[in-house]
């Protein structure tokens, strides 16, 4: 087994903030907009370094999305920053018409996604955003797993022409992907090779999947672990190749099973290689207040549940 070391827990939103700061220095076309959450999104450094390219719009997300669309006219690359809920559900029609349908090169950067923003509770914990965004034609959907990958993704999407939804979060989580690693949009990352079951994870649950693989290994079960950071376009080839070898799959995400990564994987497999699948995801529910760890445990979004689902799906082969 490959051993992955946590080089020091960090929040993925800081990966975004540091990536944006770097972009501010190296790409003069990058502009940033924020709806009164500059500190939460870690956009302060960009704002301080590039005051003329930073747009504080106030608590007015609809206007922010429209402005971002307009800023592409004249050649800028706008990055919007607010919580995932306010980046998607609140402004779905603005994104749909002014950004996606209008083919605008806007990067929608969303922090505090999923349950792990914690105590603020369900009003702020969106578990539907991947589904909302992947349904929009032409939208690229990315959910990064740690600080390093979020920073790399932030840099990469500036060079990609077209609308992107970049999803990350609030809590400090294990940082284990390579520093300054290459980020290829749409390319799965094979983290652990195995033969008995494929675990396909995205976002904060990638680390949990690696932990689950360790537990399974101790029981003599060989788990393959794939990090799908890009949910759309999905790296179907990597998924099919792995599942042809293992014969079963567990998907893991901090999102509702309806509309999430798991459904995208299921579609791919049902068309190409029908396979037993188990889902680690929330079950058509809103979240609630609690610490991130408590919430992940209560809703079964952790290594323990991934391992249980892996054992269950192996029995269905």
């Amino acid at each position, binding site marked *: 087994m490959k051993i992955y070391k946590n080089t020091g827990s960090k929040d993925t939103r800081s990966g975004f903030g540091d990536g944006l700061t770097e972009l501010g220095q190296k790409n003069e076309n990058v*502009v940033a907009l924020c709806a009164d959450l500059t500190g939460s999104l870690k956009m302060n450094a960009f704002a301080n370094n590039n005051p*003329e*390219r930073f*747009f504080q*719009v*106030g608590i*007015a997300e*609809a*206007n*922010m*999305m*429209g*402005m*971002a*669309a*307009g*800023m*592409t*006219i*004249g*050649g*800028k690359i*706008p990055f919007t920053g607010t919580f995932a809920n306010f980046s998607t559900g609140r402004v779905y*029609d*603005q994104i*749909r*018409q*002014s950004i996606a*349908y*209008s*083919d*605008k090169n806007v990067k929608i950067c969303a922090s505090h996604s999923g349950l792990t923003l914690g105590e603020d509770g369900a009003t702020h914990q969106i578990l539907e955003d991947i589904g909302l965004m992947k349904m929009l034609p032409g939208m690229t959907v990315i959910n990064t797993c740690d600080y390093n990958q979020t920073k790399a993704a932030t840099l990469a999407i500036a060079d990609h022409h077209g609308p992107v939804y970049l999803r990350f979060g609030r809590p400090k989580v294990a940082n284990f992907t390579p520093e300054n690693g290459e980020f290829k949009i749409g390319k799965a990352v094979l983290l652990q090779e195995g033969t008995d079951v494929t675990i396909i994870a995205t976002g904060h649950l990638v680390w949990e999947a690696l932990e689950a693989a360790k537990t399974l290994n101790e029981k003599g079960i060989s788990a393959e672990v794939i990090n799908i950071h890009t949910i759309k376009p999905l790296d179907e080839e990597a998924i099919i190749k792995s599942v042809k070898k293992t014969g079963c799959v567990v998907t893991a995400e901090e999102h509702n099973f309806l509309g999430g990564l798991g459904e995208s994987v299921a579609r791919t497999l049902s068309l190409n290689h029908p396979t037993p699948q188990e889902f680690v995801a929330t079950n058509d529910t809103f979240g609630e207040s609690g610490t991130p760890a408590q919430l992940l445990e209560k809703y079964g979004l952790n290594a323990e549940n991934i391992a249980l689902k892996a054992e269950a799906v192996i029995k269905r082969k």
Partner: protein
Amino acid sequence: MADTQHLKDLVTQVRRDIVRQVHAVSSGHPGGSLGCTEFLVTLYNEVMDHDPSFNMDGVNEDLFFLSNGHISPVFYSVLARSGYFPVEELGTFRKLNSRLQGHPTTHEDLPGVRIASGSLGQGMSVAIGAAAVKKLNGDTKTVFTLHGDGELQEGQIWEAAMYAAANDVDNLISTIDVNGQQIDGSTDQVLALGDLRGKFEAFGWRVVTVTKGNDVDAVLAGIKEALTLTGKKQPVCILLHTEMGNGIDFMMGSHAWHGIAPNDEQLAEALRQNPETLGDY
């Protein structure tokens, strides 16, 4: 006063284009289109510095964003007759595989369109973004928008209006088509707009009122006055009072023709009232 006969001739021809487009597919929005004909004809032919060879970025050009996208028939006609695409293409309006979708879009690469619109309330925000980038690029041209008065019931308009004033967006002229009508009836019946001048002024805008919004000379004078107010740390609004269905007597003064196409007899009568000037498509 400048001779504006060529604009008046063009207005008559654009009216013919509008009713012929919607008649051909028995759908579309003639009422608001006819009300805004003088404004768009004047803007594109007498005011804006723009290049019909069309580049999306529009650097060093004046830009126009149509926020009330349902008046696409007048927008398409004015764009075609300004040289953005062949006037014959107006015959594809709302038909399958056309670039002239029911509501304007960039998705089919129609020259002259820079944003999709139709779902209301979004165009002012887009224009503010484009205006901000003009300043970043050192581009001194102006950004224009057009909105329906009913559209002002959308909250996003007021988010945008607040932003523009707070951030000195003074290269923006937003025109409101004040025709007092919307789908379900008059704006007073549906959701009264109150004192629009007072509202925009309270938000920090400069306001120009054009009471004769269907008179090209009055429209031109109003836009020129608005232009003198740009560059002074405040956004500018034109309250353009128009008559829905203007130029076709049986369509005027009612919301009934908001989204209804004329039948064959009505088309013939509409065309009789607006004789061909520059040639039909």
